[in-house]
């Protein structure tokens, strides 16, 4: 946060509200997000968040929140397409999705309270372990 404050301090027009993104830039971000979502079954936040920060000068908080809102549409469209193709297991989605709703409410509430450096490293290590497991036959 401190870095963005020093950047915007010299430019009062962006100090309170960063500029809205250019249409072409946002379209490219959307294009990438949709492909990621349907190809990998993820929301696309992994590309949307850094691109919003880099290309549209969002701060991390606004990038995360805006990405999450866009993902609702991305994931719904991906689900519809995969549903037509017969790839969606509807009941199983509820088995993980409903508990996750409880988790996300807790996560958002905890976000400002936990020092997340160690937590981030732990989560990153877990992802690497899962990747290795998935690459094994």
């Amino acid at each position: 946060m401190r870095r963005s404050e020093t950047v915007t301090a010299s430019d009062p027009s962006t100090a309170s509200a960063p500029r809205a993104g250019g249409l072409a830039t946002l379209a490219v971000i959307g294009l990438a997000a949709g492909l990621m979502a349907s190809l990998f079954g993820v929301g696309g936040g992994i590309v949307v968040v850094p691109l919003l920060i880099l290309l549209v000068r969002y701060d991390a908080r606004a990038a995360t929140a805006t990405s999450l809102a866009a993902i609702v549409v991305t994931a719904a469209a991906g689900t519809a397409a995969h549903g037509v193709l017969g790839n969606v297991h509807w009941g199983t989605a509820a088995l993980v999705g409903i508990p996750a709703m409880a988790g996300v409410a807790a996560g958002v509430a905890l976000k400002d309270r936990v020092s997340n450096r160690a937590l981030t490293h732990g989560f990153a290590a877990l992802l690497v372990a899962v990747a290795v497991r998935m690459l094994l036959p």
Partner: protein
Amino acid sequence: MIAEAVLVIALGVAAGLVAGLFGVGGGIIFVPTLSVILGLAQLDAEATSLLAIVPVAALGSWRQARAGTVRWRDAGIIGAVSAASAVGGALLADAAPERLLRAGFALLLLATAAQLVARARRAGDRGAGS
């Protein structure tokens, strides 16, 4: 069977928790849970994960909208364009071999891990961080 269901539900909670905490997640946990633990094919795991993401992202953004951090115009544009490319992506995924999808997902996990560490490092450089 019951132990498996309990594990899957616990992983569902964990997926939501990391989604709320890190802004990435949901799918990154859903897909391995569905494929490795429940034994779904990679394609089906990805498709099912997308459905599970919808309510989680909706709830998460609703909570953050109250803090006023969602930029609705930009989210709308990204969402609308992504809806079109998501349909294209689904057709590609449907035609792709299982092994390729799985390897691609594993690479995505590694990229996500790298990005999280880089992000934590930047936050650390700034002192308290965000």
